[in-house]
């Protein structure tokens, strides 16, 4: 080729490449093996998961290795025009090294829904009601207390999946850009059950509760969700608001407050009711290469402050002063049951990266720091999305002094490998 024509070739090269790649792409689309028709709609979904976990116990603690087989199924079907049945259940079969094995069944949802017209819905039964704009802590998720039954992962999303709903009557009225939801959940039992196949109504329906939720879209950036919640001796208001700050940034705030006892008083069986609020504020930023990063500040004025936390820890260190060495354990257990913050302030960074360098590989992880006692927890997950099954590897690390929020966990490190098949 004559050198004088070289510039022409160089100039046209990108265009020629584009045309070639376009033609190749169109040829791919012509391939006969590509599915032409869509899959049929079905009213159920299910998956099975086989997992093995090993743990490194903290000094003097017990954290046995474990194996687990989980079966998870959801049916959401139409009984008759306007009538719907939802059943959602999970069975976890656990085995702990040389110690015990146990099956825990979680009936997440079982309710009948009636929709007399497009704008009215009524549900009766066990319903998993969840509200909250936050990622790692949800003060407006009023029905989270007692909802956890079988913890299979530290992933905040998994904690929301494996929870049992409360029995309730729920109604919703919708209009363009707005909705009003009202629900009533009665007291059905006094105390939680240790029986793995119990409905555990004592955990989910220990007192009479009600909730009103209203939302009205006012404009593109202001469409909060307002909540009003009541239980004996306490009424709380709440709000959830998230806003698009740029093409790649979403900010959110979640707030709940009202007359209520502190968590420590609840643990002691006392009543020090006063106005107390809790909130979460954060933002999620997404890059062009499929990485999402969230930062979240969490605060709960019902939880212990630095002085109260030190006092609780000192009670354990020093023995039985005030006869309350058990306060620490009771307080922690209650915080866990209610999925509340253990201390007043926390920080969470969460990142997820889809197709992390390789198509089909998803990475996720978080770092949570207790801002009162400086202990922290980190969690990493790698998930390979295979054609027939997903392979997941998880690593959890707890750091802190022996009685700190995260340092007190029985295991300093946990690893889990899981194989999940979706039917």
């Amino acid at each position, binding site marked *: 080729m004559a050198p004088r024509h070289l510039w022409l070739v160089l100039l046209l090269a990108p265009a020629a490449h584009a045309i070639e790649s376009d033609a190749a792409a169109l040829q*791919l689309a012509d391939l006969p093996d590509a599915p032409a028709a869509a899959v049929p709609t079905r009213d159920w979904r299910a998956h099975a998961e086989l997992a093995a976990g090993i743990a490194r116990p903290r000094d003097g603690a017990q954290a046995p290795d474990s194996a687990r087989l989980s079966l998870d199924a*959801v049916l959401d079907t139409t009984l008759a025009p306007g009538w719907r049945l939802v059943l959602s259940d999970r069975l976890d079969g656990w085995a702990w090294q040389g110690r015990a094995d146990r099956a825990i069944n979680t009936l997440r949802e079982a309710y009948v829904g009636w929709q007399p017209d497009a704008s009215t819905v009524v549900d009766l039964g066990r319903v998993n009601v969840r509200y909250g704009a936050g990622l790692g802590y949800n003060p407006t998720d009023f029905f989270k207390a007692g909802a956890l039954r079988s913890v299979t992962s530290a992933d905040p999303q998994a904690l929301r999946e494996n929870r049992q709903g409360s029995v309730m009557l729920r109604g919703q009225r919708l209009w363009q850009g707005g909705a009003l939801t009202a629900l009533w959940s009665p007291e059905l039992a006094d105390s939680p059950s240790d029986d793995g196949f119990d409905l555990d109504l004592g955990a989910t329906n220990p007192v009479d509760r009600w909730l009103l939720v209203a939302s009205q879209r006012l404009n593109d950036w202001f469409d909060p969700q307002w909540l009003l919640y009541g239980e004996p001796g306490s009424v709380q208001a709440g709000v959830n608001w998230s806003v698009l700050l740029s093409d790649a940034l979403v900010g959110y705030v979640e707030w709940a407050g009202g007359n209520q006892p502190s968590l420590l008083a609840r643990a002691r069986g006392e009543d020090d009711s006063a106005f107390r609020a809790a909130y979460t504020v954060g933002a999620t930023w997404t890059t062009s290469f499929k990485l999402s990063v969230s930062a979240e500040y969490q605060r709960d004025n019902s939880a212990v402050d630095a002085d109260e936390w030190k006092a609780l820890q000192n009670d354990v260190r020093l023995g039985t002063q005030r006869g309350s060495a058990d306060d620490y354990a009771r307080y922690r257990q209650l915080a866990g049951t209610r999925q509340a913050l253990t201390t007043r302030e926390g920080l969470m960074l969460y990142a997820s990266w889809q197709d992390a360098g390789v198509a089909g590989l998803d990475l996720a992880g978080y770092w949570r720091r207790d801002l009162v006692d400086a202990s922290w927890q980190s969690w990493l997950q790698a998930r390979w*999305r295979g054609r027939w099954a997903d392979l997941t590897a998880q690593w959890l690390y707890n750091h802190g002094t022996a009685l700190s929020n995260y340092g007190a966990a029985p295991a300093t490190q946990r690893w889990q490998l899981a194989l999940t098949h979706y039917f």
Partner: protein
Amino acid sequence: MRTFLPALVMVLASAVHAAPEAQALLAASDAIRNPEKPFGLTTTLIEYRNGKQQETTSLAVYSRSERGSGQFRSLLRFLAPARDTGKLMLKSGNDLWFHDPANQATIRISPQQRLLGQAANGDVVTVNLAGDYSARLAGEEDITDGDRQPRRAWRLELAARAPDVTYHRIEYWLDRSNNRPIKARFYAQSGSLLKTAYYRRYQSQLGVERPTETVIIDGLDPNWVTVMRFADYAWRDVPESWLQRDYLPRFKPE
């Protein structure tokens, strides 16, 4: 007079053969891609990387145009793969919500976050470009369409009216004889090519010849190709009251 007459003739001639108004062309092509009444369809997205078929995603799409703006509001429900069955995405302009029935979480997502999944390609289709973009007629060209047929096409240059859109600029080729979309190139604000789309396999759906397949080529990685197939077009009752965050946990497909 000698100079005036030819000028008059030219003016009259150009009036007779006037180029059509670009915005009207764009609106006409929108009407070909999107039915005017609330409708539903099923989209199957087949992804190829380096010529090898990857995961296939199926979505049921329920869509209606908003009164006033004409912008489409869509509810996308995952049918496949099995791990994503039942997940929902609500899209009304940049107002985007994602609902996962497994954890009952309904969260607002950013347009950039929406691009994480294959569903992102789904809304390349059900979008009314005339609402968000100003069109300019950039000329006429002979191009090869997605079915390898030569076509005489209008080339439109679309400029985003608002700064917060994912595709800052679009090059859009329409069949000169019937305004059918043939091809589009979607650009980021930086000027980089994000996607090339070919609209092809026109068939009669809901009374109009519409493209039943779109081939999307990634701008940064031409070896990443997504084929979208559309089936089960049907008029659907999609009440306005359903297209909001608070209805997502209750949504039950027919």
